């Protein structure tokens, strides 16, 4: 029986640096402490919840009947459309990513990871970066997967490199980029190189400077001997609730910006060489577009330079509103507030270097 608790799996992983040693005590958050109603009769609470949902469904039916003719605000409807579009665009990726991550947690023994990833974090980082090229999906899928990698004893730096590389350089995204920028293979190459470079560099920075207590690690969910499908089910439920909630936060923010900020404001800066790159990076963060679609969006900014478009495609899969919220859900805010600026800076530097060399 493979050992599932991080405490003991970290014992079998050499602590090459502080950043890769796993904390043994979890940084608990307030809302996960034992609830105040701990010990009250569960039956009453359950019945209450069911009634609450019944009421909610009735209210929705009523609201639909009452509102359908009255909802005429075009701005609100456009906002609702963009919000729903972002949510439902991301939902399948979230569900498949969460399912894959739950399967990794439940069915793949930890020893397999330790064989696949070199034990020295410095060496595991590039391996993790390249293995990001294997997993088709977007950033919504990679966050829970990275969480489960850490849970299974993979060095956090390597898991983070995987988290950054997978949504940017996987085959689906590469093909989408090639389709969008047809006839310009240097754009695809530049995206691959810049994203991989940034991911690996960030991984190495984390090996050297990262601190274990910045990372709130996903708690081990099950004692040994729990049926595997129960582990699978509960791990999936846990990730759906955490990552899914923040996905909605990101979608709300992105939809609001999409409606409130006219794209034309940005076109006025398209000519400035460095500023235009920064503006495109900022736009990537705000719009939170799925990495499988961002190449088409980058292409639509015809006034911007190729390097600025590259910045949009390199920064977007690493830092955006939706993604930062999801990272915070899985690894905690202490992690997210340090990791997002690091990704932004390294991503931009990598864009300038690769853009300067290739474009």
């Amino acid at each position, binding site marked *: 029986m493979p050992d599932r608790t991080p405490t003991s799996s970290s014992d079998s992983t050499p602590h090459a640096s502080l950043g890769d040693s796993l904390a043994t005590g*979890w940084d608990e958050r307030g*809302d996960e402490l034992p*609830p105040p109603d701990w010990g009250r009769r569960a039956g009453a609470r359950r019945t209450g919840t069911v009634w609450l949902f019944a009421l909610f469904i009735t209210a929705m039916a009523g609201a639909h009947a009452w509102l359908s003719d009255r909802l005429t605000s075009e701005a609100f409807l456009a906002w609702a459309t963009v919000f729903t*579009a*972002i949510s439902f665009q991301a939902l399948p990726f979230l569900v498949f990513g969460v399912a894959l991550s739950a399967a990794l947690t439940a069915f793949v023994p930890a020893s397999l990871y330790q064989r696949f990833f070199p034990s020295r974090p410095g060496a595991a980082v590039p391996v993790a970066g390249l293995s990001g090229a294997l997993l088709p999906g977007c950033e919504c899928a990679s966050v829970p997967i990275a969480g489960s990698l850490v849970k299974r004893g993979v060095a956090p730096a390597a898991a983070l490199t995987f988290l950054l590389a997978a949504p940017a350089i996987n085959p689906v995204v590469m093909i989408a980029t090639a389709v*969008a920028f*047809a006839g310009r293979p240097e754009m695809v190459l530049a995206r691959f190189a810049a994203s991989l470079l940034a991911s690996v560099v960030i991984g190495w920075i984390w090996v050297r400077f990262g601190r274990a207590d910045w990372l709130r690690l996903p708690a081990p969910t099950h004692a040994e001997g729990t049926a595997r499908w129960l582990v699978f089910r509960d791990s999936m439920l846990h990730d759906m*609730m955490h990552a*899914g909630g923040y996905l909605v936060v990101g979608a709300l923010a992105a939809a609001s910006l999409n409606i409130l900020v006219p794209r034309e404001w940005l076109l006025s800066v398209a000519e400035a060489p460095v500023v235009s790159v920064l503006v495109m990076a900022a736009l990537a963060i705000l*719009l939170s577009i799925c990495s499988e679609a961002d190449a088409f969006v980058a292409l639509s900014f015809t006034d911007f330079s190729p390097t600025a478009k590259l910045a949009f495609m390199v920064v977007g899969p690493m830092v955006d509103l939706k993604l930062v919220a999801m990272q915070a859900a899985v690894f905690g805010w202490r992690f997210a507030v340090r990791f997002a600026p690091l990704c932004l800076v390294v991503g931009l530097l990598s864009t300038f270097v690769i853009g300067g060399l290739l474009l």
Partner: protein
Amino acid sequence: MNRIAQGLTLVLLGAAALTSTVPTNMYLNWVKPGFGPFLIAAGAITVVLGAAVVAAEIRDGNRAEDDGADNSACATAGGDGHAGHDHARAPRVAWLLLVPVVAVFVVAPPALGSYTVERSEPASAPPEGPPSGRFDDGLDDAAPGEVVRMDIRQFVMRAWVDEERALAGREVELTGFAVPNDEGEGWYLARLQMACCAADAIVNRVLVTGVPEPEADTWWTVRGTWVEPEGELVDVSEHRFQALEWEAVDNPPDPYEA
């Protein structure tokens, strides 16, 4: 958020995804047609997961009541609770998963239309030319004098990029929705082009002259010819279209162009 609430939330979320794909085509207002099967699969998985959680919770709860103890919160947590981590509860932010449910069942957001078009200025630079050097609109293959049906995207590309001006004098049929033009004559026939979802939609539009302005957001098929501009094509961002005939379209199947 207790486990029953989590399970029911997932059931509703999955039901929203399934409702917008299976009995209706609502999802076409938001994402690309090819995305339908993925949404169906994701919706089904979400419903099954939510139902399994609710069923297990009710079963465990009943057993707990029989035992006379409340252990439902850690019924599957292996009992030791891991330093007080109550894994059975979800953070409050998870309630937000009900927002898309409300959006689908209450608001049922329509496809983007004239509001979005009116708010966006026409792009100031032409699109990148066709990658292979060949336009994909079928104009080159059509017999002379034949009416060519093309997307507004393809028309705009031709009108803006094709230095050969092959479009001149050809009869073309375009389909889109009407957008009023507040300045000057004519009205716009527009269509949104979507790469992935409505968040990345970009506007393609032509200025129609020769027929009276219809009501905003009504759909029309207009047959007419390109009004060839003077000077460099690249500098002309408003593409004019002289209408000859037009016909109302009821409910076009896909509101967006690929």
